[in-house]
């Protein structure tokens, strides 16, 4: 009877740690614990409530006539857009040259409704000459492109180029040893040196330390646009580089092995949380001193 009661409360998440030890030898409890652990792998994918709410508002807006509370937002947005267009027309005569600094992200509207989001420490340039025949963009760093259907759109960077006639894709290339290209919608052609690869929706190509990997991805867009960097089986050194770009850090890492492979993510919104999500799984510890962050092994 006693056991049954404890088990009931354990299942209702209202058992204290102390009481829990009383159950430790119970065979049924241990089986339930194993089952609980196994069940974790079947967790529902996380609903990204904020982006999904934005999408909902869009659907409602296009479906129904605008309601009052949207109208205000639309008016303000219109003023901003006109202001922005005037600004770009006067000061840069429709050519663009953009740089995102440490921890910065920039949204850029290209001619013809295409958009680019530029991640921290990245640059993008375009000229709208002959835009209707060929859309040319040069970039360095990381950017997410949302390209509307139309003339060939060519992104040139140090590794080579990407060509599409309309797609959503992400390019990350901060160092010659790290290239990752992911396609989220449509089709893109990736030229690296004299090799060509075609990526369709949900496919990713990475070239890390000269190792080429092609794989499927499930996410509908890159996580960094929601202020979270995610890496899969990536050497730590490239993850730390990105951390430094997001938080403007000088990292001291002499005593740790930066070639270990890491899978995980870190937030762009809080340095401590970000550092913890990297250091804890790798058994490292950190100290912060202004913009300097020192990483050491736990046992040192």
């Amino acid at each position: 009877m006693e056991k049954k009661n404890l088990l009931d409360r354990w299942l209702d998440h209202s058992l204290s740690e102390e009481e829990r030890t009383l159950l430790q030898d119970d065979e049924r409890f241990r089986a339930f614990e194993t089952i609980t652990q196994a069940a974790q792998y079947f967790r529902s994918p996380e609903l990204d409530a904020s982006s999904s709410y934005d999408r909902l508002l869009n659907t409602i807006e296009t479906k129904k006539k605008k309601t009052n509370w949207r109208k205000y937002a639309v008016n303000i947005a219109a003023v901003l857009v006109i202001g922005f267009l005037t600004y770009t027309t006067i000061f840069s005569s429709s050519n663009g040259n953009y740089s995102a600094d440490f921890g910065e992200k920039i949204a850029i509207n290209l001619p013809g409704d295409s958009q680019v989001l530029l991640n921290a420490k990245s640059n993008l340039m375009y000229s709208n000459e002959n835009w209707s025949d060929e859309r040319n963009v040069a970039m360095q760093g990381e950017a997410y492109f949302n390209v509307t259907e139309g003339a060939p759109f060519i992104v040139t960077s140090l590794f080579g180029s990407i060509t599409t006639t309309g797609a959503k894709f992400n390019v990350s290339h901060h160092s010659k040893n790290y290239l990752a290209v992911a396609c989220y919608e449509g089709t893109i052609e990736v030229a690296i040196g004299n090799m060509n690869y075609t990526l369709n929706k949900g496919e990713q190509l990475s070239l890390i330390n000269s190792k080429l990997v092609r794989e499927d991805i499930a996410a509908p867009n890159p996580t960094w646009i929601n202020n979270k960097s995610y890496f899969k089986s990536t050497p730590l050194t490239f993850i730390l580089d990105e951390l430094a770009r997001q938080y403007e850090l000088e990292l001291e890492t002499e005593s740790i092995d930066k070639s270990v492979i890491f899978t995980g993510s870190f937030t762009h919104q809080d340095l401590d949380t970000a550092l913890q999500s990297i250091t804890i799984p790798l058994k490292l510890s950190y100290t912060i001193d202004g913009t300097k962050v020192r990483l050491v092994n736990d046992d040192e």
Partner: protein
Amino acid sequence: MNKSLFKNVCDKVVFERLYAKHSKNLHNFLYYKYGEAINPEDKVQEAFVKLWEKCKDVSIEKAKSFLFTVANNKTLNALKHKKVVLKYNQKPVKSHTNETPEFLLEESEFMQRFKNALESLPEGQRIAFMMNRVEGKKHQEIADILGISRKAVEKRIYTALGKLREQIKEL
């Protein structure tokens, strides 16, 4: 009575609160009930769009059950009872691994068996079980979400645990 006399679902603030309160539960409910074959996020969207269109006719108190009913019906229409398939999320990759290949093989057999057992549970039991064991919800919370009694929730969880235990015992 309270504020709900003055505000209805057409109020943007109310609508947004309803979204914050119910979207995730609704999403996970659909996922655990029907698996990954349907796109639960789309169904959540459709249900909320419908709620917005009918915001004058649905009271705040009825909004939750309206959403769950609409989402469920939309899903049933989209899916003529396909077999439930849950996705086995990859374990986080370790930087180095000490397990022997035999161990890994046994483990993957275990997971496959567990997956089959989970998929073959009646949907009501699976939803209650996953919300409790994976989402960490208390029995009363689950009872509120599903609109059934707390006793019924407990029974579903126990039955599910019992069946899963039977299924994996032989390993």
